[in-house]
């Protein structure tokens, strides 16, 4: 059965927007890496010293950093950590001890000297972080890595789908059949030539980085830089790809202020250098399976700052300021490899993410290769939906990159940073702007989310089970023995149909996107959903039994896939049975 109609328009191939690699901003950045890293160090030092403007406050900050780093090294070491980690921090400790013991006098000169010493220690730490975060982009490896991905994936795909002994060399199927690239692609290509793009995808799987990297190339765009979890560099295969794709390293274990500021400075400066950038603003992968409903604003804030700095600079130089465009992207899968462990984490730590210790599911290269093989040899599809580009205030932009208000009038983005006719830095204002931008991104996710049959069957089944036990809370519900869960097919079909009609209505109103396969005949759509939901999990979330009724083998992952459809008000179709519908007025 053909899963998606192959849309020739979207797969016609795109010419690169920049003629040669030497024009890629990321290449220029790596050629001047020392200069760039120095800028990062200076910029983050400046921010940190603004918040700790004297010796006492700075030493306090340094001691906190030291304490946290030593705790991290003891409690959560990783293979990718450098060997001199212990010695480095021991040395910092020694310097800090010396600093406090040698300091007795409180006259101004001695205080100033004291502050200078503390600054030197700060610079040592910031510099270590900046070098750790930065990675070298190599155009040659980029080319190799990219063709490896394309070739490898395409072989796997054809090996499984095209029967016969020549299948391995068949080109009948390409990645483009498997990955549906939809949405505002032309606009993205236009704007990438007119300004700097900040792409913000939803985040479900560790595969996202590779997938989006491939898509970016496929669209003829130069490579984007992006932060990739340091844990991914634990695995040699992935580390190779990451390094060569322009990834910088993000260590989520390091939550100290010095590290966070350095990371932000890296991102801010790279955007200012005109490097297209990619953040996953959800922070980590969605553990619940829901499309992001709140965002981490730290890195988005760096784009806001970069935009203001660009305007400030252009006011001085007289040149036109580089404009930054935000492009939300929604990824959709029938299947997420890590779903069972993600949902387990979610249920364990619900609402208490700060106590969560980053784990590392992909501990070996063989695991990920096995996964990739499975992934591409089976018939499950992926969609990558590009939302409309916006400026940093969430305003839509036209093809020339001009910001527009709701009436289509052109707005000067620069003027958002004005106070009394001048561009002024106001951190509280910018953080509020960033919050507003976050909301605009979430809204875009919501409407560009593409409903797959698998999401909808999962939602229907889970809600039906929930409806049977109105008095149980989530945790008790998930403990119900799975073998007792049999849903009568006809009832299921009716419920699915109702929801599908509602989804169509929402789609028509521009509130959600739908995959073409969802519009098939009802039984076909259901079968398609059942066939695809959690396809490769050892315990399938949904199956048909011999009688043709619907059963589950894993309520947790069923819950996970069900969550994708949260936030559209579909729950209202499953009112708990035997409950008074309306509370009467007393």
């Amino acid at each position, binding site marked *: 059965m053909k899963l998606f109609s192959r849309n020739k328009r979207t797969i016609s191939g795109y010419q690169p927007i920049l003629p040669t690699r030497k024009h890629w901003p990321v290449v220029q950045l790596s050629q001047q890496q020392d200069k760039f890293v120095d800028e990062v160090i200076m910029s983050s030092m400046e921010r940190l010293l603004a918040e700790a403007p004297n010796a006492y406050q700075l030493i306090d900050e340094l001691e906190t950093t030291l304490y946290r780093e030593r705790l991290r090294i003891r409690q959560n070491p990783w293979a990718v950590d450098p060997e001199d980690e212990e010695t480095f921090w021991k040395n910092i400790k020694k310097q800090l001890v010396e600093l406090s013991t040698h300091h007795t006098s409180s006259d101004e000169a001695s205080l100033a000297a004291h502050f200078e010493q503390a600054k030197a220690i700060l610079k040592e730490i910031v510099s270590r972080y900046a070098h750790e975060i930065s990675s070298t982009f190599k155009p040659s490896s980029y080319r190799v890595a990219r063709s490896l991905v394309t070739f490898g994936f395409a072989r796997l795909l054809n090996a499984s789908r095209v029967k016969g002994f020549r299948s391995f060399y068949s080109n009948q199927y390409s990645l483009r059949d498997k990955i549906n690239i939809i949405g505002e692609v032309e606009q993205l290509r236009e704007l990438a030539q007119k300004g700097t793009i900040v792409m913000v995808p939803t985040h479900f799987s560790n595969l996202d980085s590779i997938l989006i990297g491939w898509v970016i190339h496929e669209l003829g765009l130069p490579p984007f830089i992006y932060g990739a979890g340091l844990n991914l560099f634990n695995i040699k295969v992935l580390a190779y790809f990451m390094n060569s794709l322009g990834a910088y390293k993000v260590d989520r274990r390091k939550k100290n202020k010095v590290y966070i500021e350095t990371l932000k400075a890296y991102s801010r400066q790279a955007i200012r250098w005109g490097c297209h950038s990619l953040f996953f603003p959800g922070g980590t992968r969605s553990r619940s399976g829901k499309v992001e409903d709140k965002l981490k604003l730290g890195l988005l804030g760096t784009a806001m700052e970069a935009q203001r700095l660009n305007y400030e600079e252009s006011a001085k130089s007289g040149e036109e300021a580089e404009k930054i465009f935000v492009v939300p992207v929604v990824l959709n899968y029938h299947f997420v490899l890590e779903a069972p462990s993600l949902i387990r984490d979610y249920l364990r730590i619900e609402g208490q993410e700060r106590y969560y210790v980053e784990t590392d599911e992909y501990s070996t290269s063989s695991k990920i290769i096995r996964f990739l093989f499975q992934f591409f040899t089976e018939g499950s599809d992926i969609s990558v939906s590009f939302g409309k580009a916006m400026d940093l205030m969430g305003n839509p932009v036209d093809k020339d990159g001009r910001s527009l*208000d709701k009436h289509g009038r052109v707005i000067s983005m620069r003027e958002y940073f004005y106070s009394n006719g001048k561009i002024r830095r106001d951190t509280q204002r910018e953080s509020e702007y960033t919050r507003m931008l976050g909301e605009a991104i979430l809204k875009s996710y919501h409407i560009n989310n593409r409903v797959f049959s698998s999401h909808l069957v999962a939602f229907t089944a889970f809600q039906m089970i929930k409806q049977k036990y109105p008095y149980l809370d989530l945790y008790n519900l998930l403990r119900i023995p799975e073998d007792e869960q049999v849903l009568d097919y006809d009832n299921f079909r009716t419920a699915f149909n109702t929801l599908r009609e509602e989804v169509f209505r929402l789609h028509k109103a521009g509130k959600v996107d739908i995959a073409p396969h969802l519009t098939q005949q009802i039984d076909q759509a259901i079968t398609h959903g059942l066939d695809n939901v959690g396809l490769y999990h050892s315990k399938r979330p949904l199956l048909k039994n011999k009688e043709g009724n619907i059963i589950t083998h894993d309520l947790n992952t069923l819950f996970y896939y069900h969550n994708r459809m949260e936030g559209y008000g579909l729950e209202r179709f499953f009112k708990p049975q035997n409950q008074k519908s309306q509370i009467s007025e007393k």
Partner: protein
Amino acid sequence: MNKPYIGVVGAGSFGTVIANILAENNPVLLYARRSEVVDEMLSLRKRGEYKLHHNIQPTNDLKQVAEQCQVIFPIVSSAGFRASIADLSPFLKPYHILIHGTKGLDIDYKSSQALNRENVRTMSEVIKEESVVVRVGCLAGPNLAKELAEEQPGATVVASHFDEVIEIGQKLLRNPRFQVYGNNDLIGIELCGILKNIIAIASGALSGLGLGENSRALLISRGIVEMIYLGKALGGNIEAFIGLAGVGDLVATCFSKHSRNYTVGYRLAQGETLTEIMETMEELAEGVNTTKIVKQLADYYQVGAPITRMLYKILFEDLAVEKALDSLMKIPFTEDVGFM
């Protein structure tokens, strides 16, 4: 250096009073839509019963207001608010700061479904919808126009998500008799100002029936509870309601014979109908429109709001005030405060 002009859009009683307060610190452009009002202000240096400060320049030109003023205070009735902002919008730039002083709600009448939060907007939301301005704030608190005009001591709250808006609002409005507080919960503060008007009508009704302070104390305390439940359902926080803009404003309005809302309630209890009252009132009492909208929202979100519901019946379904009071007293409350 010459001080910049501050704009006030709307020369009703509250708008005029605010313009007068602003004029103590800065020159003010006071916009009135009707040219005869501008003429009156120019020739008599008066607006209705209020004198105009010599720093006030009346105008009929919105473009001039937008071009000369970076900070503008739109103070017009909620019914005309969206249209006013839409008129001003073509001249507004992203750097403008708008601090409104309108205590009402705006409804999207296009929707055929039951009213819910999606088609009801506060005034700050209207500004953001109709214009490019994002630096938005609101004025709230016990601001009885008459008392302020008499230069009695008073206070207000400037609420905004932006610290700079609060600071600017404070700088512009503050004088030795007028204290200005800041608050970051914009929606919460807006809702305080909106919801208290319902209780104020009820308070007027109690007086109209000749009842005393025990009954008003009951009304105010149950009223604030009702405001908090409604406020939470509509997206505000509890904190806003127990401050100056919440309890403070509620108490002032419930005791004030100067308040239009109070007057509506009083006259209802005296046996007049809503139509009769509205025919003889120069400016609309916001509480009437608010009661209509909030009652529907309370239905939609299933919030227990007995005072609002009874008032709705009095205003729009001809229920006699005495009967409403009688029913209210029969509500079997089991707890005093259940949300803290």
